[in-house]
């Protein structure tokens, strides 16, 4: 964990209520599947945001405007500084992926799949990616995933783009050895029930500190209580109680 001042390079809308922010700073401490905690002026608690990508000193975050904090973030401009705690959470274990990993992201759960996909491709794996959104105007990063060389399927709940239905409706279109998923809890539960292999789930919870001190984001697992921020956000399928 490090507390670092990042400078905004770009901050732009990429889909409905969805923004991409590229920050410059020391990214040495950041691993795939982790999150960062941003100090936004005027708010007492920090904003935990999943890491979308890290390349050199360039940190990419994608966030949805869901409340007052992210509303302020959406208005921030190039050159503004953000105090950011980095290196938070356990991240994905990419050693378990097998040759054909499946990456399933829903809405605000899509971003962490990007760096994961990049790293898996770099390891010589052939990932399939299923991206779920409510409708066409919320779709983002389809081309970015394709550019990595992944097999990409987009599903929209209203059928306005790609496969009509939920991410799990696209499962029969792919053959996979293992899976990684991040998204809203009902989607994670559906993936849990539909999946035929082992896999890893990235969870979200209201956090106090983001680094394991306050026990604000605890959950029960088959192996005891875990803190989403410190022992998670990634949990393995076998330990989840559903």
């Amino acid at each position, binding site marked *: 964990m*490090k507390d670092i001042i990042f400078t905004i390079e770009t901050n732009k809308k990429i889909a409905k209520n969805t923004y991409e922010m590229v920050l410059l700073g020391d990214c040495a401490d950041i691993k795939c599947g982790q999150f960062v905690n941003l100090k936004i002026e005027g708010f007492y608690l*920090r904003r935990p945001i999943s890491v979308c990508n890290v390349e050199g000193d360039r940190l990419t975050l994608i966030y949805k405007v869901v409340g007052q904090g992210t509303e302020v973030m959406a208005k921030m401009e190039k050159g503004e500084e953000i105090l950011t705690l980095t290196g938070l959470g356990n991240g994905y274990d990419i050693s378990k992926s097998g040759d054909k990993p499946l990456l399933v992201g829903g809405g605000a759960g899509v971003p962490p799949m990007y760096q994961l996909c990049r790293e898996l491709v770099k390891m010589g794996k052939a990932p399939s990616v299923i991206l779920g959104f409510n409708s066409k105007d919320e779709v983002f990063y389809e081309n970015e995933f394709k550019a990595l060389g992944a097999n990409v399927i987009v599903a929209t709940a209203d059928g306005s783009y790609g496969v009509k239905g939920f991410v799990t409706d696209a499962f029969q279109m792919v053959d996979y050895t293992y899976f990684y998923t991040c998204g809203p809890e009902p989607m994670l539960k559906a993936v849990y029930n539909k999946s035929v292999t082992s896999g890893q789930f990235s969870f979200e919870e209201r956090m106090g*500190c983001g680094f394991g001190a306050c026990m604000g984001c605890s959950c029960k697992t088959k192996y005891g*209580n875990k803190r989403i921020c410190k022992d998670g956000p990634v949990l393995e399928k076998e330990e989840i109680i559903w």
Partner: protein
Amino acid sequence: MVSLKTNLCGIELDNPLIPASGTFGFGYEFAEIYDINMLGSFSFKGTTKDAGFGNPTPRIAECKNGLINSVGLQNPGVHKVLENELPKLKACFHKPVMANVSGFSVEDYVYTVKMLDSEPQIGWFEVNVSCPNVHGGGMSFGTSPEAAAEVTRAVKAVTNKPVIVKLSPNVTDIVAIAKACEEAGADGISLINTLLGMRIDLKSKKPVIANKMGGFSGPAIKPVAVRMVYQVYEAVKIPIVGGGGVESAEDVIEMMLAGASAVQVGAANLVDPMACPKIIEDLPRVMEKYGIKDLKDIIGGAH
């Protein structure tokens, strides 16, 4: 040269800074980013007889200048604390530590204190009679002078270490409770715990916190804490650990002027893990600014 040293119940502290229980775990998360031996001490995560998961989530609600938590005393139980947590604590912290204990009955408090008493690194017991997040225990002992005194007497009977009673601000007359604890043998008073608070989400139109209410802390509560430390200082002779919304060297000095011998920092640790080292680094400058040479000289200076 200014002196930051202070004394709490006969134990010398290098400085008055004590991270508050529940905001600092067992220390090792913070030891990843700074040497926690620079602290005066810290109060470890509230420990109970049995393991507890605490309350359902969401347990955290943000507020203007503070937050509400309803963790509800989640801890692995005193046996696992002894087995797993204290060895990790000892590896990164080498000063006397404050053991925060809580219970659902007087017998619970006694059991937990007895179990921990033989740990040489424990310098003080901080007996929490003020958790607002646990029904049938916690705060109920801290809202009546008789119950608070009963817990104090029972704990004092099973340990020779200093016993500091942590009081709830959610009472009509905190002075009466502090005096009852002093008469029952308490060696110190710690205050304040969190204020019972609530937030309602406008989208769902329901409370943000699953348990509906929780403990409000952060800079917004500091004036309440300063007032209560000031009132209790007038009424008791035993030392006071003051806390509530402290996040700067100026706040530390204010709390000591009100009557605190040592100062707890709580919520600030959660939003800035470097909050305590920054305060310690800043204290000499702020002391010089206000003509203070020795922190011990200003305790209760506002009276």
